[in-house]
């Protein structure tokens, strides 16, 4: 299908050095895109940049902390001056959930702001940073990586859930605002994705997913690729969930399957 190609497109992927970010960088590159790998973890950023280059695509790593707007603006400028334009922005940078649950009164202002800033403000800064460029060109695609946690609540995940819910509504508002400027804004909401945690933890989490396993980064990247490509040209303002069936249910335990005869 030729519309699934990203030939000659320039894609900026924030958090590109992470597990999911890396998978998207590679999938987009395989589809023909030039990749700007943005991350604050320089080492993994450089590794992914090199992997993309090995696939025969142009790539550039730009260090950026998405919670600092001047760094975001610099990153955008650098990407545009290097490759002439940015067609696709993937707002993927974020921190995965609070590690150590604790009572709400022990969460500091700083922790709250860090959670909201990385996962929500970062997406806003990057979208703002690229907005003029995309509007002027009357063309652009933004993909926000949300989460199932932005749709349903999770115990002890105040910042993560709130920020991801914010990302979903940011997606809808941006989509609505720019629908007439040739810019599409969509989201991908994964369930748990296997990245850098101990394998046992993913195994345990997988047992609460109807499919019985967590998602692989590559599986998420295909959906992002679809939304980044012309194949999805009439889709905007949507957040597509990819979670092994988790959100389709969640109303009863996953093995609950009653049989109730029809009584006349």
């Amino acid at each position, binding site marked *: *299908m*030729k*519309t*699934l*190609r990203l030939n000659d497109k320039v894609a900026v992927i924030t958090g590109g050095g992470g597990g999911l970010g890396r998978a998207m960088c590679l*999938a987009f590159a*395989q*589809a023909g895109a030039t990749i700007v790998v943005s991350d604050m973890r320089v080492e993994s950023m450089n590794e992914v940049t090199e992997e993309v280059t090995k696939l025969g695509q142009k790539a550039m790593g730009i260090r950026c902390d998405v919670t600092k707007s001047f760094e975001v603006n610099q990153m955008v400028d650098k990407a545009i001056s290097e490759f002439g334009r940015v067609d696709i922005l993937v707002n993927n940078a974020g921190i995965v959930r609070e590690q150590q649950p604790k009572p709400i009164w022990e969460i500091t202002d700083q922790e709250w702001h860090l959670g909201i800033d990385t996962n929500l403000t970062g997406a806003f800064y990057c979208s703002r940073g690229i907005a003029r460029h995309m509007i002027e060109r009357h063309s652009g695609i933004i993909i926000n990586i949300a989460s199932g946690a932005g749709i349903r609540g999770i115990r002890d995940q105040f910042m993560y859930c709130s920020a991801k819910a914010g990302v979903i509504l940011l*997606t*809808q508002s941006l*989509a*609505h605002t720019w*629908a*007439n400027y040739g810019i599409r804004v969509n989201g991908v909401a994964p369930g748990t994705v296997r990245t850098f945690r101990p394998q046992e933890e993913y195994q345990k989490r997988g047992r609460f997913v*109807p*499919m*019985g396993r967590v*998602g*692989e980064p590559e*599986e*998420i990247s*295909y*959906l992002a*690729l*679809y939304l980044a490509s012309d*194949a*999805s*040209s*009439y*889709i*905007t*303002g*949507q957040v*597509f*969930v*990819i*979670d*092994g*069936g988790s*959100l*389709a*249910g969640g109303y009863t335990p*996953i093995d609950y*399957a009653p049989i109730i005869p029809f009584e006349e």
Partner: protein
Amino acid sequence: MVEEFDLSGKTALVIGAGKSWLEPIAISLLEAGATVIVINQDKNRMPLCGGLASTLNQRFKGISVDLLDYRTLNQIAEQEISNWGKFDILVNSLNVRFAKPLIEIDYEEWRKVIDTNLTTIFTACKVFGRYMLKQKAGKIINITTCLGERGVPNCTAYGAAAGGVVQFTRSLALEWVKSGVTVNAIALGWIADLVEIPEERVERYIPMRRYGRPEEFTPLAVYLASPASNYVTGQVYFVDGGAMAHS
């Protein structure tokens, strides 16, 4: 094409009574490499994909049958499974649009709307899904509309069927989640040629301010039919130019 999106060697069943949604889906599945069997209600509205299929070196077959006739469908299934060996993909579709004030809808109309739009999907999943369960693999895609999630006056019957497809999709997805069969839905907004709303409403209700084209939702069907979507199940994906993001 990224190879996970490839449908070469797959057998796809495309089932429905209307013409317009079947044809673009059949074409895109053919183009992605699948063998396509269209089963529709009315012989005169069968998509003619034979020429396209032969230029693509793919196979195409059209069968017309009463989509509520469980027995005949079973016979067709038995026959086709012996022809092709397996059913990899099943695309079902809402079929007949209908809108009328509730007070004026008689029972026969109500039943007809629910039967042609919802019961046909139930029947097809039962008849063909059986083989997917045996294979421990399969991709079911139900085509519904935004009316399955949003209310519209006079669309009680059609909307109930569309919403029925949404909940049917979620429940079946979980019921069959351990069997390797994924069940998802595509909910369409205003697609050109298939719907008509007054122009000024396009401006007001569709953020993209235009109708969609059939080729703008068929790639999603290919994605949901392909191994690229193996971790997606029980989901309803909207193709609507932003309409659902609209408050």
